[in-house]
């Protein structure tokens, strides 16, 4: 054996891991946040900054008879007041539809209401002041005469067209979708067992700690617009601002700073934010809009208001034959631009029954208009609904057949050796690991011990329950998600890597950071692929003037797509570094490698040339390099998944609860989450994504709901009444991983950011129902409040 053979075989086209990927590195960019030195939009200080506030409709549905803003205009510190028609002069309206969501419809939407307001909270008048307080003072002086119109809040009434909200559309159906693989009625008629259940899901909203925020800075001298924006998708916003405000694309720049939580809330086009940019053009000054908490509740997108009836057919021995779904969701008065409000319902249709082998599926979904706030994509879009529907009905079937829920799942989860696998509905899976995940979960939670504890507890009148929730999750979306429908939303992302003269490495990437750790995992990948240490890597994201073009952060795509772009870019840069080193050292390139911030001899592993020295030569003394050699120490690569529409991931969660049957209170005793997101780049960050996601799901299960009255008034539009999960009630969460890297990329990473949220509500629901089973009670209406549990128990 030669010495060369003993070397690790690391050809140019293999990942040269030097141990950063897979390591639990803390986030370098978190240090400033720990000292209060982060910069959120509200922290920016610009000369002549003006503040905009909005008069919002107090009515869910009303015609604007007149607006008198004369007193407001005369109020101290007021720069200008604008109504809908004034803003419409500057900003073109939009329609939130996509071509691939066949038949989806929505009326034209303007930044400010034009003739009528369609939900409580819709912006109607913009007031620009020297300070926020002065603008709010003037807001109290705007007088609007309203003519109330009939209010549509109920989904069923909306479906029936009673009344029709947008007469020009003829009915209230924004979007409907049907899937039918055939023969359902016959299959169900002949099945040994058919179970049916109706599940209700309360509306939620994201409650980002930092409200939505935008600071628009229009420069009339250049006809240019710089927008500092708390957004997940700066290039999308860039494109939309340019087109709707009629500013050349090259004159627009969108910059993200630190973002105080987003979770899908900050990836949409909001009328008040578009209005802020228009206002900056009109007053020719920088203008800031910072949503306060109360207006956030009625203007941030909502999500998840569904009523779903599902049937499952199975054989006597516990084999699932098929699912039959009827889903109804209310999306507010407009489909949100540009992603539409049809995706959530679409996902419910796509994902229901997802983890289980079955041959028959029928689904019918309607998304209808109502006079509540708009809904759109929020963390785990559609998944929490689909998983709860599926896992709820699966548990019910297992119970009816007297089969342990674990055993029932073993019999029906798609076998780990069945891939590639396709559902009759057309969904394709590259490779999933349901059974491995289930095994790992049972081991982590010690299922048998919990069952024994449960039996002992029942003997003393204490009702504990175990709930499982298996799931599939859409991650790494390709152009199939939005692009094919005509949305100008990039599914590809780019990464630029530049070796600096000091040997430092600068990474610019189109994926953005809101605290998930995007920049850290990119640094890890870049460090490994190029051969530098982590402390030499600086990552820059969130600036459309400097980063490559890309989609940003949403749909659990950042690490999988952005990370692969970084990997490919790193590989290309390393090749260029070797070219330069070979030129400098006048040796065979094949004998060289890069490791630990230096070019090394592959045989001896001795450092031959530090990257700092290489950088110095290439940038400052190119005269010393061989004639005709030009170094290229900055490279850009892009990546988009092409083989599959999505990289599906899978996972399973378990919840362990105690239900106080006298009070209806649920105590979360434990929670476990096993997830297969492919290559784990940073276990510390992945686990905290899972935990944070789980807790968002626990909030959905137990606390969160936007409550509306029949007049379309949100009754709990403040943080004292809209209950978010707090530290006191949340359990510790045990995380586990199975790693099945996707072969659609070299990195092999799939998404992980939404899994926790997707599965947790179903696990809690099943756990509560397991606890209540001896009392013949069931709950199916989320959130599971004490009141609802007591009602199910017949106690009240």
């Amino acid at each position: 054996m030669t010495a060369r053979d003993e070397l690790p075989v690391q050809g140019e086209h293999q990942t040269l891991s030097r141990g950063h990927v897979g390591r639990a590195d803390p986030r370098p960019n978190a240090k400033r946040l720990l000292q209060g030195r982060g910069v959120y939009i509200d922290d920016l200080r610009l000369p002549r900054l003006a503040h905009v506030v909005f008069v919002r409709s107090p009515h869910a549905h009303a015609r604007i008879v007149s607006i008198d803003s004369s007193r407001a205009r005369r109020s101290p510190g007021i720069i200008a007041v604008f109504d809908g028609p004034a803003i419409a002069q500057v900003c073109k309206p939009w329609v939130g539809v996509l071509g691939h969501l066949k038949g989806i419809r929505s009326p034209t939407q303007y930044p400010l209401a034009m003739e009528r307001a369609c939900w409580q909270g819709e912006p109607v008048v913009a007031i620009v002041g020297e300070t926020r307080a002065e603008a709010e003072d003037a807001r109290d002086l705007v007088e609007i005469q309203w003519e109330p119109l009939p209010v549509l809040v109920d989904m069923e009434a909306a479906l029936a067209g009673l009344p029709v909200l947008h007469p020009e559309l003829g009915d209230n159906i924004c979007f409907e979708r049907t899937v039918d693989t055939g023969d359902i009625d016959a299959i169900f008629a002949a099945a040994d067992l058919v179970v049916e259940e109706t599940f209700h899901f309360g509306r939620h909203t994201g409650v980002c700690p930092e409200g939505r925020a935008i600071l628009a800075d229009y420069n009339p001298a250049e006809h240019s617009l710089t927008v500092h924006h708390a957004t997940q998708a700066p290039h999308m916003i860039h494109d939309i601002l340019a087109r709707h405000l009629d500013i050349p694309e090259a004159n627009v720049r969108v910059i993200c700073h630190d973002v105080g939580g987003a979770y899908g809330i900050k990836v949409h086009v909001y009328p008040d934010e578009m209005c802020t940019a228009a206002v900056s053009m009109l007053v020719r000054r920088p203008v800031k809009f910072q949503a306060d908490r109360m207006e956030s509740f009625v203007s941030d997108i909502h999500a998840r208001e569904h009523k779903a009836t599902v049937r499952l057919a199975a054989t006597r021995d516990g084999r699932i034959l098929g699912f039959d779904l009827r889903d109804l969701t209310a999306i507010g008065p407009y489909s949100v631009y540009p992603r539409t409000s049809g995706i959530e319902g679409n996902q419910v249709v796509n994902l229901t029954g997802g983890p289980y082998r079955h041959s028959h599926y029928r689904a019918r979904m309607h998304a209808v208009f109502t006079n509540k706030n708009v809904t759109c994509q929020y963390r785990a879009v559609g998944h929490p609904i689909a998983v709860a529907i599926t896992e709820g009905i699966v548990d019910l079937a297992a119970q009816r057949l007297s089969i342990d829920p674990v055993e029932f799942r073993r019999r029906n989860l798609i076998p780990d050796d069945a891939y590639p696998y396709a559902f009759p509905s057309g969904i394709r899976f590259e490779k999933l690991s349901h059974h491995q995940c289930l095994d790992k979960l049972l081991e982590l939670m010690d299922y048998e011990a919990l069952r024994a504890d449960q039996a002992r507890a029942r003997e003393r009148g204490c009702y504990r329950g175990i709930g499982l929730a298996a799931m599939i999750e859409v991650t790494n979306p390709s152009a199939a998600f939005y692009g094919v429908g005509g949305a100008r939303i990039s599914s590809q992302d780019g990464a630029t890597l530049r070796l600096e003269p000091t040997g430092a490495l600068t990474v610019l990437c189109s994926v953005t950071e809101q605290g998930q750790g995007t920049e850290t995992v990119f640094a890890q990948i870049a460090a490994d692929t190029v051969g530098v240490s982590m402390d030499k890597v600086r990552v820059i994201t969130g600036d459309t003037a400097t980063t490559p073009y890309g989609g940003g952060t949403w749909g659990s795509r950042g690490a999988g797509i952005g990370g692969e772009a970084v990997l490919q870019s790193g590989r290309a840069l390393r090749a260029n570094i070797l070219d330069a080193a070979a030129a400098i050292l006048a040796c065979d390139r094949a004998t060289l490698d890069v490791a630990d911030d230096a070019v090394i001899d592959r045989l001896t592993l001795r450092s031959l040339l530090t990257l700092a020295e290489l950088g110095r030569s290439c940038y400052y003394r190119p005269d010393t390099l061989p004639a005709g050699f030009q170094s290229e120490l900055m490279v850009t690569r892009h990546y988009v998944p092409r083989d599959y529409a999505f990289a599906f991931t899978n996972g399973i969660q378990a919840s362990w609860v105690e239900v106080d049957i006298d009070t209806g209170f649920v105590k979360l005793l434990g929670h476990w989450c096993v997830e297969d997101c492919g290559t784990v780049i940073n276990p510390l960050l992945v686990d905290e994504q899972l935990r944070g996601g789980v807790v968002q799901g626990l909030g959905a299960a137990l606390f969160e709901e936007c409550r509306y009255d029949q007049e379309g008034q949100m009754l709990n539009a403040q943080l004292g009444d809209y209950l978010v999960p707090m530290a006191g009630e949340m359990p510790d969460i045990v995380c586990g991983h199975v790693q099945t890297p996707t072969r659609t990329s070299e990195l092999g990473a799939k998404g992980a950011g939404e899994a926790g949220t997707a599965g947790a509500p179903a696990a809690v629901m099943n756990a509560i129902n397991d606890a209540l089973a001896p009392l013949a009670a069931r709950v199916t209406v989320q959130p599971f409040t004490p009141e609802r549990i007591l009602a199910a128990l017949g106690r009240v």
Partner: protein
Amino acid sequence: MPLPEAEICLTVNGQVVRKRVEPRQHLVDFLREALDLTGSHLGCEHGVCGACTVRVDGRIVRGCLMLAVQADGRSVETIEGVSDSGELADLQHAFHQRNALQCGFCTPGMLLCAGELLATSPSATREEIREHISGNYCRCTGYQAIVDAIETTLASRRATAGASEA
């Protein structure tokens, strides 16, 4: 009608500050707008989320539930002050190592809140930690990492105290 104003004089992070303020300005807006101390955040402005937690005369308060004029003559400490003094350096380090923050918006308030527990309950249990921070909203972490980081810091401070006593 001219808006009422008041002159206040207080100590902020050890420095004496004299300013004219509108009585209606709450303490966090004063710190952020008049002094550019932007580390204290406005999360809800109605006393629920804890993102604006600062210290007044050594005790944590909701900065949005106190007027700047009420802080006249008092000593106010913010995340900038305690970071520069190094008083919470161990806690900040534990947060960093444990990834007990993501977006970071709640973090300054969370640190100051936890700091009071470190000072007053050196042997707090996990349950007591959760209880103590139960008024500080974090949407990203699910709280467990925060509880871990506080628990770690309590343990290391106890170890240090034990060692110095020995």
